[in-house]
């Protein structure tokens, strides 16, 4: 397994700059998630690392050695594509064996068979080896694509949104398995996704990418508890963080268009207008709550219920555990947990204490 480093990678496609000075590193054995919306440049980053695209500027290093000049086959990376990763006319066995049969490797057939069977067992697809890929379910197909990467024992795994085309339930199951597999094998993995749950649950560290720029790099806790910008704050967390405008007067923060008032946070240089972020789980409903609101919508999810609270002209989301008897148009009182508030300047950057 190897470590990977990107130094100021820039890539342009005609008029569009897909990557703009992107730099980050993936430590050996780490599960690094690149998170960003569609079009952020995540797939391009992976392709540059794999050697399928040449960067216009910048270097890619494996274990400290520059690999810009190496062809994809020489880099010894495994790539799991978002779709179209399996050859339709071949059996599962042949699909798994395909990487091992490349002339570069010259592996004898008995060795190939051993590796394929070992990998199939790890992914629990041994019973599918003789089937053609056309007769597999979505989850089984994705396991086989993972198997193709796994069977090679490469220096690093590159995964391009491998779970995004699966049903919600399958995604949940494969997420846990993939994480467990990575931890027990110790494989250096760079995983790309737009799904923030995948990022939070699977990553050792997360890099947030938007329009070709890295916005923040940190552990899941860093990204969730201390988002560097409003973009990051809104990207992670379901339901979405409540982000509202506020203005400062004397020692109080007034949330625009609402009755909500908060004390000025100590030790922070707060500008006259700012943005305040509060996560739904920090908006607490209780009888002695400070502020009054009307329920605009309820979304019962079973384990918890999302309530849309209308205070003044603002709508704030709140979560209560389990099911609730509250109905639309009911009046409730709520408080906001001060310690967990996020403060941002009007340009979106975090105001730190």
């Amino acid at each position: 397994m190897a470590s990977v480093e990107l130094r100021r990678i820039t890539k342009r496609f005609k008029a569009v700059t897909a990557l703009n000075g992107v730099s980050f590193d993936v430590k050996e054995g780490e599960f690094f998630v690149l998170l960003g919306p569609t079009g952020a440049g995540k797939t391009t980053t992976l392709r540059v690392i794999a050697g399928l695209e040449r960067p216009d500027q910048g270097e890619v290093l494996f274990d400290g050695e520059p690999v810009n000049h190496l062809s994809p086959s020489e880099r010894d990376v495994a790539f799991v594509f978002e779709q179209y990763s399996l050859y339709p006319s071949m059996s599962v066995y042949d699909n798994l064996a395909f990487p091992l049969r490349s002339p570069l490797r010259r592996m004898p057939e008995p060795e190939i068979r051993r590796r394929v069977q070992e990998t199939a067992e790890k992914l629990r697809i041994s019973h599918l080896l003789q089937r053609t890929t056309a007769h597999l379910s979505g989850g089984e197909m994705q396991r086989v694509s993972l198997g193709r990467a796994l069977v090679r024992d490469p220096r690093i795994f590159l995964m391009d949104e491998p779970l995004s085309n699966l049903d919600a339930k399958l995604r949940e199951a494969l997420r846990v398995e993939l994480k467990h597999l990575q931890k027990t094998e110790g494989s250096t993995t760079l995983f790309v996704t737009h799904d923030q749950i995948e990022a939070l649950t699977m990553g050792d560290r997360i890099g947030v990418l938007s329009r070709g720029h890295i916005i923040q790099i940190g552990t899941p806790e860093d990204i969730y508890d201390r988002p560097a910008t409003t973009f990051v704050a809104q990207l992670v967390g379901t339901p979405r963080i409540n982000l509202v405008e506020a203005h400062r007067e004397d020692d109080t923060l007034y949330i625009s268009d609402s009755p909500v008032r908060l004390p000025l946070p100590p030790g922070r240089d707060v500008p006259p207008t700012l943005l305040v972020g509060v996560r739904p789980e920090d908006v607490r409903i209780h009888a002695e709550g400070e502020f009054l609101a009307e329920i605009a919508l309820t979304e019962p999810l079973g384990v918890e219920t999302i309530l849309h609270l209308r205070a003044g002209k603002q709508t704030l989301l709140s979560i209560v555990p389990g099911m609730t008897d509250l109905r639309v148009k009911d009046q409730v009182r709520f408080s906001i947990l001060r310690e967990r508030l996020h403060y941002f300047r009007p340009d979106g950057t975090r105001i730190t204490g």
Partner: protein
Amino acid sequence: MGGVKATGIFFRGTTTSIRVDKTGIRARIGVAVRAVLAVAIAVIVLIPVVWMGLTAFKKHADAVAVPPKVFFTPRLLDSWVFLFTDRLVLSKPMLAQYPPECTQSWQVCLKSCPEVSRWYECVALENGQLVTGPSKYLERLRNSLIIAGCSTFLAVLLGLLAGYAFSRFEIPGKDDLLFFILSTRMLPAVVVTIPIFLMYRRLGLHDTHFGMILLYTVFNLSLSVWLFRGFIDEIPREYEEAALVDGYTRLEAFRKIVLPNAMTGIAATTVFCLIFAWNEYAFALMLTSEKARTLPPFIPSMIGRGVVEWEAIAAGSLVFLIPVVIVTFALRQYLLRGVTFGAIRQ
């Protein structure tokens, strides 16, 4: 209630079930009317071909009869003999030199006429003619096969490689190049026959197999490149990229992955190119005379010698049809998918 299976006799493997949108009586009458109309149009289109087939088995008198004869006694051999041999029409006195058994029916002639050695001479004699040698038809057929075959093969091969390059690589000026290639199809071929004629004359390519193959290949290349680019665009890049990352060179990836998936494209392009090269008339007429002449200009030229042997021409045209029919039939499995630019989707 709603399903109709369409199973072709010649095309196996694809059955389509038509979901009936409206299920009332009016809708079903509508479907029936449209079906009848489709069959009628098909019949009308096929009539000339059927007529041609019938004519190939008529004796001369029937072939030129006015009003046209639909029902007749077929003569299996006459027109074929006329097609493949050159003959001399014997005058009455010359005919009289043969004993009667030689000139009445060819079966009798074969058995009991010692002077006439071959069965086709018998057939000719029955029609009052003497065989003087083979006709040029077979030679022209051979030329057609060579020229059309080679040019199709080359157009498909080069088009495949070029189409692959256009699809996968970043070529400077790609869009312009593609437009240039397409633009050659925009002018009617006849417009350039004279310049090319002069060029070929100069280069000594006039009336050579090589010259014709070169010309047809180039003309087919524009269609071939565009078709292949489209077909290869439909093959996900990820297939080859996965192979590249796994340690295969581009050529190996091309051979193992692109080729098998491009079979429908290859089949469809082969048929299109073959049809063009096989049927091409204008250039064949202008740029060939004796050695490299193909069938399309030759068959009409059979008309101009005295009595027009329509039955022979019909037979010749029938033979002309066969190779393309065979190729299309052999490739039918691929064509069904290929003509609609079938995508490989998981």
